[in-house]
Protein backbone atom coordinates (compact mmCIF):
# COMPACT_ATOMS: atom_id res chain seq x y z
CA UNK A 1 0.00 0.00 0.00
CA UNK A 2 1.42 3.37 -1.00
CA UNK A 3 1.81 6.41 1.22
CA UNK A 4 -0.91 8.35 -0.57
CA UNK A 5 -3.33 5.48 -0.23
CA UNK A 6 -2.57 5.11 3.49
CA UNK A 7 -2.97 8.84 4.00
CA UNK A 8 -6.28 8.95 2.22
CA UNK A 9 -7.70 5.98 4.12
CA UNK A 10 -6.47 7.20 7.49
CA UNK A 11 -7.87 10.67 7.03
CA UNK A 12 -11.15 9.35 5.67
CA UNK A 13 -11.57 6.87 8.52
CA UNK A 14 -10.58 9.23 11.34
CA UNK A 15 -13.12 10.95 13.49
CA UNK A 16 -13.18 14.68 13.84
CA UNK A 17 -11.83 15.95 16.14
CA UNK A 18 -9.48 15.11 18.99
CA UNK A 19 -10.22 16.88 22.27
CA UNK A 20 -6.53 17.75 22.58
CA UNK A 21 -6.49 20.97 20.53
CA UNK A 22 -9.35 22.38 22.60
CA UNK A 23 -7.63 21.32 25.84
CA UNK A 24 -4.27 22.73 24.71
CA UNK A 25 -5.78 26.08 23.81
CA UNK A 26 -7.63 26.24 27.14
CA UNK A 27 -4.42 25.48 29.05
CA UNK A 28 -2.60 28.16 27.08
CA UNK A 29 -5.30 30.75 27.73
CA UNK A 30 -5.40 29.99 31.46
CA UNK A 31 -1.69 29.30 31.90
CA UNK A 32 -1.01 31.96 34.54
CA UNK A 33 -3.44 30.79 37.19
CA UNK A 34 -3.03 27.12 36.25
CA UNK A 35 0.69 27.42 37.07
CA UNK A 36 -0.19 28.63 40.58
CA UNK A 37 -2.93 26.05 41.07
CA UNK A 38 -0.59 23.25 40.00
CA UNK A 39 2.22 24.35 42.32
CA UNK A 40 -0.23 24.60 45.21
CA UNK A 41 -1.44 21.07 44.50
CA UNK A 42 2.12 19.76 44.52
CA UNK A 43 2.81 21.43 47.88
CA UNK A 44 -0.36 19.97 49.36
CA UNK A 45 0.43 16.48 48.04
CA UNK A 46 3.90 16.74 49.51
CA UNK A 47 2.54 17.87 52.89
CA UNK A 48 -0.07 15.11 52.94
CA UNK A 49 2.65 12.56 52.31
CA UNK A 50 4.98 14.04 54.94
CA UNK A 51 2.19 14.18 57.51
CA UNK A 52 0.78 10.80 56.50
CA UNK A 53 -2.64 12.36 56.07
CA UNK A 54 -5.20 10.99 53.62
CA UNK A 55 -7.18 13.08 51.16
CA UNK A 56 -10.31 11.98 53.00
CA UNK A 57 -9.01 13.38 56.30
CA UNK A 58 -8.09 16.63 54.61
CA UNK A 59 -11.62 16.82 53.17
CA UNK A 60 -13.07 16.36 56.66
CA UNK A 61 -10.88 19.14 58.05
CA UNK A 62 -11.89 21.43 55.21
CA UNK A 63 -15.54 20.48 55.57
CA UNK A 64 -15.82 19.62 51.90
CA UNK A 65 -16.25 16.47 49.83
CA UNK A 66 -13.44 14.03 49.09
CA UNK A 67 -14.30 14.50 45.43
CA UNK A 68 -13.51 18.20 45.67
CA UNK A 69 -10.16 17.53 47.36
CA UNK A 70 -9.37 14.99 44.67
CA UNK A 71 -10.17 17.58 42.02
CA UNK A 72 -8.11 20.38 43.55
CA UNK A 73 -5.13 18.04 43.97
CA UNK A 74 -5.00 17.56 40.22
CA UNK A 75 -3.79 21.15 40.03
CA UNK A 76 -6.34 22.54 37.60
CA UNK A 77 -8.81 24.08 40.01
CA UNK A 78 -9.39 27.82 40.27
CA UNK A 79 -9.09 27.93 44.07
CA UNK A 80 -10.73 30.46 46.33
CA UNK A 81 -8.50 32.34 48.76
CA UNK A 82 -10.69 31.04 51.59
CA UNK A 83 -9.94 27.46 50.58
CA UNK A 84 -6.22 28.14 50.31
CA UNK A 85 -6.15 29.74 53.78
CA UNK A 86 -8.06 26.83 55.30
CA UNK A 87 -5.59 24.36 53.81
CA UNK A 88 -2.65 26.42 55.10
CA UNK A 89 -4.11 26.23 58.60
CA UNK A 90 -4.97 22.52 58.49
CA UNK A 91 -1.57 21.46 57.13
CA UNK A 92 0.39 24.21 58.84
CA UNK A 93 2.14 25.17 55.61
CA UNK A 94 2.47 28.35 53.57
CA UNK A 95 0.97 28.08 50.10
CA UNK A 96 0.88 31.65 48.88
CA UNK A 97 2.49 34.94 49.80
CA UNK A 98 1.74 38.42 48.59
CA UNK A 99 4.58 40.86 47.96
CA UNK A 100 4.84 43.73 50.47
CA UNK A 101 2.43 46.51 49.59
CA UNK A 102 4.10 49.61 48.29
CA UNK A 103 3.15 53.17 49.05
CA UNK A 104 4.58 54.93 46.06
CA UNK A 105 3.63 54.87 42.43
CA UNK A 106 6.25 52.52 41.06
CA UNK A 107 6.55 54.44 37.82
CA UNK A 108 7.97 57.52 39.45
CA UNK A 109 10.69 58.27 41.91
CA UNK A 110 9.32 60.35 44.73
CA UNK A 111 11.30 62.43 47.13
CA UNK A 112 9.94 60.96 50.33
CA UNK A 113 11.23 63.77 52.52
CA UNK A 114 9.64 66.36 50.28
CA UNK A 115 6.26 64.66 50.23
CA UNK A 116 6.33 64.15 53.99
CA UNK A 117 7.10 67.82 54.38
CA UNK A 118 4.20 68.80 52.13
CA UNK A 119 1.70 66.74 54.09
CA UNK A 120 3.08 67.78 57.47
CA UNK A 121 2.71 71.41 56.50
CA UNK A 122 -0.90 70.72 55.71
CA UNK A 123 -0.84 72.09 52.20
CA UNK A 124 -4.28 71.43 50.77
CA UNK A 125 -4.43 73.34 47.56
CA UNK A 126 -5.78 72.06 44.26
CA UNK A 127 -2.33 72.27 42.75
CA UNK A 128 1.11 73.13 43.95
CA UNK A 129 4.70 73.57 42.92
CA UNK A 130 7.54 72.88 45.25
CA UNK A 131 11.24 73.24 44.86
CA UNK A 132 13.52 70.43 45.82
CA UNK A 133 17.07 70.77 47.07
CA UNK A 134 18.40 69.90 43.65
CA UNK A 135 16.19 72.53 42.04
CA UNK A 136 14.00 69.93 40.41
CA UNK A 137 10.40 70.98 40.20
CA UNK A 138 7.71 68.63 41.44
CA UNK A 139 4.24 69.49 40.25
CA UNK A 140 1.26 67.63 41.60
CA UNK A 141 -2.10 68.28 39.96
CA UNK A 142 -4.90 67.94 40.69
CA UNK A 143 -4.89 67.20 44.38
CA UNK A 144 -8.02 65.71 45.87
CA UNK A 145 -8.87 67.65 48.98
CA UNK A 146 -10.71 64.93 50.84
CA UNK A 147 -7.96 62.48 50.05
CA UNK A 148 -5.27 64.76 51.43
CA UNK A 149 -7.28 65.43 54.56
CA UNK A 150 -7.94 61.77 55.18
CA UNK A 151 -4.37 60.77 54.56
CA UNK A 152 -2.62 63.86 55.86
CA UNK A 153 -0.67 61.96 58.46
CA UNK A 154 0.63 59.42 56.01
CA UNK A 155 2.89 59.53 53.03
CA UNK A 156 0.57 57.92 50.53
CA UNK A 157 0.69 58.72 46.87
CA UNK A 158 -1.51 57.22 44.24
CA UNK A 159 -2.52 57.87 40.68
CA UNK A 160 -4.63 60.90 41.61
CA UNK A 161 -1.48 62.90 41.19
CA UNK A 162 0.26 63.68 38.00
CA UNK A 163 3.87 64.57 38.43
CA UNK A 164 6.39 66.36 36.31
CA UNK A 165 10.02 66.60 37.37
Amino acid at each position, binding site marked *: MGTESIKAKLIA*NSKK*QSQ*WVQDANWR*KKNEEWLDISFSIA*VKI*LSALKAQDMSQKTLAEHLDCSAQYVNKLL*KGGENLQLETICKIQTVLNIKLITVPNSFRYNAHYHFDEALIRHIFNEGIKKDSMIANTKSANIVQLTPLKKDYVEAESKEVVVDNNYSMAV
Partner: protein
Amino acid sequence: MKIVDTFVVVENSLISVQYDTEVVDELTRLFTLWNDATYLFDFFTEHQNDLTHDFWNEITIEEAVERTRNEAKRLEKKLLEVAESGNTNAEITLSSIFKPLSKNKIEKELEKDKLKGDNRPSWLRIYAIRIDLNLFLITGGAIKLTKTMNDRTHTLVELDKLELVKKYIQENEEDIFEDYEI
Protein backbone atom coordinates in the same frame (compact mmCIF):
# COMPACT_ATOMS: atom_id res chain seq x y z
CA MET B 1 -5.93 -3.79 23.89
CA LYS B 2 -7.70 -2.83 20.67
CA ILE B 3 -7.79 0.25 18.50
CA VAL B 4 -11.31 1.60 18.57
CA ASP B 5 -10.86 4.86 16.67
CA THR B 6 -8.45 7.36 15.19
CA PHE B 7 -8.98 11.09 15.66
CA VAL B 8 -7.82 14.00 13.56
CA VAL B 9 -5.80 16.34 15.78
CA VAL B 10 -4.58 18.76 13.13
CA GLU B 11 -6.00 18.44 9.64
CA ASN B 12 -3.69 16.49 7.31
CA SER B 13 -0.80 16.28 9.80
CA LEU B 14 -1.62 14.76 13.19
CA ILE B 15 -3.86 11.82 13.97
CA SER B 16 -4.22 10.17 17.35
CA VAL B 17 -5.26 6.64 18.24
CA GLN B 18 -7.85 5.71 20.83
CA TYR B 19 -7.68 2.27 22.46
CA ASP B 20 -10.56 0.41 24.01
CA THR B 21 -8.95 0.75 27.44
CA GLU B 22 -9.25 4.55 27.34
CA VAL B 23 -12.07 7.07 27.04
CA VAL B 24 -10.08 9.58 24.96
CA ASP B 25 -7.42 9.44 22.24
CA GLU B 26 -3.77 9.09 23.25
CA LEU B 27 -2.67 12.69 22.76
CA THR B 28 -5.55 13.98 24.87
CA ARG B 29 -4.86 11.34 27.51
CA LEU B 30 -1.12 12.04 27.72
CA PHE B 31 -1.38 15.79 28.17
CA THR B 32 -4.20 15.38 30.67
CA LEU B 33 -1.95 13.11 32.75
CA TRP B 34 1.09 15.36 32.39
CA ASN B 35 -0.97 18.24 33.74
CA ASP B 36 -2.35 16.20 36.64
CA ALA B 37 -0.35 16.82 39.82
CA THR B 38 -1.76 13.76 41.61
CA TYR B 39 -0.98 11.42 38.74
CA LEU B 40 2.57 12.74 38.43
CA PHE B 41 3.17 12.70 42.18
CA ASP B 42 2.02 9.05 42.37
CA PHE B 43 4.02 8.12 39.28
CA PHE B 44 7.29 9.54 40.61
CA THR B 45 6.64 8.10 44.07
CA GLU B 46 6.29 4.68 42.43
CA HIS B 47 9.44 5.21 40.34
CA GLN B 48 11.44 7.05 42.98
CA ASN B 49 14.32 4.58 42.66
CA ASP B 50 14.76 5.54 39.00
CA LEU B 51 14.98 9.20 39.99
CA THR B 52 17.89 8.49 42.31
CA HIS B 53 20.01 7.49 39.32
CA ASP B 54 22.95 9.88 38.72
CA PHE B 55 21.53 10.56 35.27
CA TRP B 56 18.66 12.49 36.84
CA ASN B 57 20.86 14.24 39.36
CA GLU B 58 18.89 13.02 42.40
CA ILE B 59 15.89 15.19 41.65
CA THR B 60 13.11 15.16 44.28
CA ILE B 61 9.58 13.96 43.57
CA GLU B 62 8.21 17.49 43.84
CA GLU B 63 10.85 18.83 41.44
CA ALA B 64 10.18 15.97 39.03
CA VAL B 65 6.44 16.72 39.03
CA GLU B 66 6.98 20.43 38.31
CA ARG B 67 9.64 19.70 35.72
CA THR B 68 7.38 17.27 33.87
CA ARG B 69 4.47 19.68 33.66
CA ASN B 70 6.65 22.58 32.57
CA GLU B 71 8.24 20.47 29.87
CA ALA B 72 4.83 19.15 28.78
CA LYS B 73 3.59 22.72 28.47
CA ARG B 74 6.40 23.60 26.08
CA LEU B 75 6.06 20.32 24.17
CA GLU B 76 2.33 20.86 23.72
CA LYS B 77 2.83 24.33 22.25
CA LYS B 78 5.63 23.15 19.99
CA LEU B 79 3.73 20.14 18.67
CA LEU B 80 0.65 22.17 17.85
CA GLU B 81 2.70 24.91 16.23
CA VAL B 82 4.74 22.57 14.04
CA ALA B 83 1.76 20.40 13.08
CA GLU B 84 -0.03 23.49 11.81
CA SER B 85 2.95 25.18 10.14
CA GLY B 86 4.15 21.93 8.55
CA ASN B 87 1.21 21.92 6.18
CA THR B 88 2.47 25.07 4.48
CA ASN B 89 6.16 25.25 5.37
CA ALA B 90 8.21 22.33 4.09
CA GLU B 91 11.19 23.36 6.22
CA ILE B 92 9.44 23.00 9.56
CA THR B 93 7.46 19.78 9.50
CA LEU B 94 6.67 17.11 12.07
CA SER B 95 9.55 15.11 10.56
CA SER B 96 11.93 17.78 11.81
CA ILE B 97 10.94 17.20 15.44
CA PHE B 98 10.11 13.46 15.51
CA LYS B 99 13.13 11.13 15.47
CA PRO B 100 13.46 7.40 14.77
CA LEU B 101 12.70 5.28 17.83
CA SER B 102 16.02 3.49 17.48
CA LYS B 103 19.09 5.39 16.35
CA ASN B 104 20.20 2.71 13.93
CA LYS B 105 16.80 1.88 12.56
CA ILE B 106 15.69 4.33 9.91
CA GLU B 107 12.82 2.88 7.93
CA LYS B 108 11.55 3.96 4.55
CA GLU B 109 7.92 3.44 5.36
CA LEU B 110 5.87 3.54 8.54
CA GLU B 111 8.83 4.37 10.71
CA LYS B 112 8.38 4.08 14.48
CA ASP B 113 9.25 7.49 15.85
CA LYS B 114 9.54 9.41 19.09
CA LEU B 115 9.25 13.04 20.08
CA LYS B 116 11.25 14.11 23.12
CA GLY B 117 10.79 17.02 25.48
CA ASP B 118 13.26 19.91 25.36
CA ASN B 119 14.95 19.33 28.72
CA ARG B 120 18.44 17.90 28.49
CA PRO B 121 18.15 15.13 29.42
CA SER B 122 14.43 14.68 28.87
CA TRP B 123 12.16 11.87 30.06
CA LEU B 124 9.02 12.90 28.15
CA ARG B 125 8.19 10.84 25.08
CA ILE B 126 5.42 10.86 22.50
CA TYR B 127 5.42 7.85 20.20
CA ALA B 128 4.08 7.82 16.65
CA ILE B 129 4.17 6.12 13.29
CA ARG B 130 5.39 8.32 10.48
CA ILE B 131 3.09 8.18 7.48
CA ASP B 132 4.50 11.10 5.54
CA LEU B 133 6.76 14.14 5.97
CA ASN B 134 4.08 15.98 7.92
CA LEU B 135 1.62 13.22 8.79
CA PHE B 136 2.07 11.22 11.99
CA LEU B 137 -0.19 8.82 13.81
CA ILE B 138 0.24 9.14 17.58
CA THR B 139 0.31 5.75 19.30
CA GLY B 140 1.05 6.82 22.88
CA GLY B 141 3.68 8.29 25.13
CA ALA B 142 5.47 7.86 28.41
CA ILE B 143 7.76 9.22 31.06
CA LYS B 144 10.87 7.21 30.30
CA LEU B 145 13.28 7.17 33.23
CA THR B 146 15.36 4.16 32.22
CA LYS B 147 17.89 3.61 29.48
CA THR B 148 15.74 1.33 27.35
CA MET B 149 12.02 0.87 26.88
CA ASN B 150 12.40 -2.77 27.82
CA ASP B 151 13.31 -1.93 31.39
CA ARG B 152 9.86 -0.92 32.66
CA THR B 153 6.34 -2.25 32.14
CA HIS B 154 4.81 1.09 31.20
CA THR B 155 7.35 1.67 28.42
CA LEU B 156 7.12 -1.94 27.21
CA VAL B 157 3.41 -1.37 26.68
CA GLU B 158 4.29 1.58 24.44
CA LEU B 159 6.44 -0.68 22.27
CA ASP B 160 3.49 -3.04 21.88
CA LYS B 161 1.22 -0.13 20.97
CA LEU B 162 3.64 1.05 18.27
CA GLU B 163 3.67 -2.42 16.74
CA LEU B 164 -0.10 -2.75 16.98
CA VAL B 165 -0.71 0.55 15.20
CA LYS B 166 1.86 -0.20 12.52
CA LYS B 167 0.08 -3.45 11.71
CA TYR B 168 -3.22 -1.64 11.72
CA ILE B 169 -1.98 0.80 9.11
CA GLN B 170 -0.40 -1.89 6.96
CA GLU B 171 -3.63 -3.78 6.74
CA ASN B 172 -5.97 -0.86 6.97
CA GLU B 173 -9.44 -1.94 6.00
CA GLU B 174 -12.86 -0.80 7.08
CA ASP B 175 -13.40 -3.27 9.91
CA ILE B 176 -9.81 -3.56 10.95
CA PHE B 177 -10.31 -2.35 14.54
CA GLU B 178 -11.61 -5.70 15.74
CA ASP B 179 -8.66 -7.62 14.38
CA TYR B 180 -5.79 -6.11 16.34
CA GLU B 181 -5.29 -6.77 20.00
CA ILE B 182 -2.33 -6.85 22.33
